[in-house]
């Protein structure tokens, strides 16, 4: 059934793993990371997640825009070209 205004009430409903669109891949060095949260705030896709007190990148949905690389003040995130 199509809801009023085609509203989707279930969060996290994307089944299409858009991470496959990526050309560049950000790599996080957890030892250099100072937990400033810049990458967490700036990531337009919400792909920076906290796990066991450290940040992690969700590669299922990260599209490789590399904004996190640009915003990291301690250069803890580098980038490589995706190998297919």
């Amino acid at each position, binding site marked *: 059934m*199509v809801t*009023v*205004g*085609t*509203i989707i009430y279930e*969060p996290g*409903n994307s089944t299409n793993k858009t991470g496959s669109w990526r050309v560049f891949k950000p790599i996080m060095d957890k030892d250099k990371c100072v937990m400033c949260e810049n990458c967490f705030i700036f990531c337009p896709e919400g792909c920076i997640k906290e796990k066991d007190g450290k940040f992690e990148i969700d590669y299922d949905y990260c599209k490789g825009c590399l904004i996190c690389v640009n915003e990291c003040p301690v250069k803890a995130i580098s980038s490589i070209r995706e190998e297919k």
Partner: protein
Amino acid sequence: MSKVKIITGTSAAAEAARLCDVDVISAYPITPQTTCVEKLAEFVANGELDAEFIKVESEHSAISACIGASATGARTFTATSSQGLALMHEVLFIASGMRLPIVMMNANRALSAPINIWNDQQDSISQRDTGWIQIYAADNQETLDSIIQAFKIAENEKVLLPVMVNLDGFILTHTVEPVELPDEEEVRDFVGIYEPKHAYLDPDRPITQGPVGVPSCYMESKYNVQNAMNNAEKVIMDVNEEFAKKFGRKYGNGLIETYNIENAETVLVAMGSVCGTIKEVIDDLKQEGKEYGLLRIRTYRPLPINHIREALKNAKNIAILDKDITFGMNKGAVYTDLAGFLKDKKTTNYIVGLGGRDIRQDDIKEIMKHAEKAEDGETKWMGLKEQ
């Protein structure tokens, strides 16, 4: 306490928005609507209205801001006219598709070129298929009352569609009339508090609004809008009745208004302020023993087909007035809409008042005379000069 003020149509619209305690207003000034948003900006600046006034750089942005505001569950109001409404065009579909009950005042004004700031109804008629409910007011009091009713209609759970309240540019927007302003508490009690279940901003209950509508769901979403329009017919009638009980004024059955229709073979069909002129002519001719009727279409969308057909069941000659033109067909939009379901009647079409051309009592009399003798389906441009 209600009080009577001598005000213009645009002021009446602004007062109505204030009385309904709108949360967000976003609009861009355009003649002849400007005085409405000026008044609202003044209300906000003076603290008479606790609302967010979002200043924007175009009408496209104004209606987009309204959509954003309404999507968070805020009661939202905007106003525009003519080119401004045309610039809003693509966004109007989004408001109805997302089922956002935005209320808009539109000052009916001609479209360029040649540039013209005076009245006709081409602007709103051109937005006919955008999924907005369209109400055409005949005077300033009705403008105020219709905007109050519009919030109640739009926010009804069975409707949830945006509403455009149209008033004739200059004829109403810049003419002062006595307007009764109802008591603020009573209006707020009448419209109630808007608490949507489909459009809100709550981090604890995340929803996705305005997603992609793939082919497997798009048709259903549009069918839902059509269903909401069907529901709106009854809601508009109910709100009209409820309004009458509370404030003592009603406008026909909310959808249409008839005048001397039961005695007449020839009936004029029209929308907006010209109906006042037509009523005067009907009264004058009645004294001479001649009977003519008027059917005023108050809500053009949803078009109350059954009510119109029923009201015209005894009429022989139906003269349909249009303040708009469908080029290449030589007909107005109201005529083309009605002719389809009045197949067994003699209908004639009159293109009147484009770009502010006066519609005088003599023009109305000429239309009445013409309608009696004319062939079925004739179109006549009234007051056209010899070239």
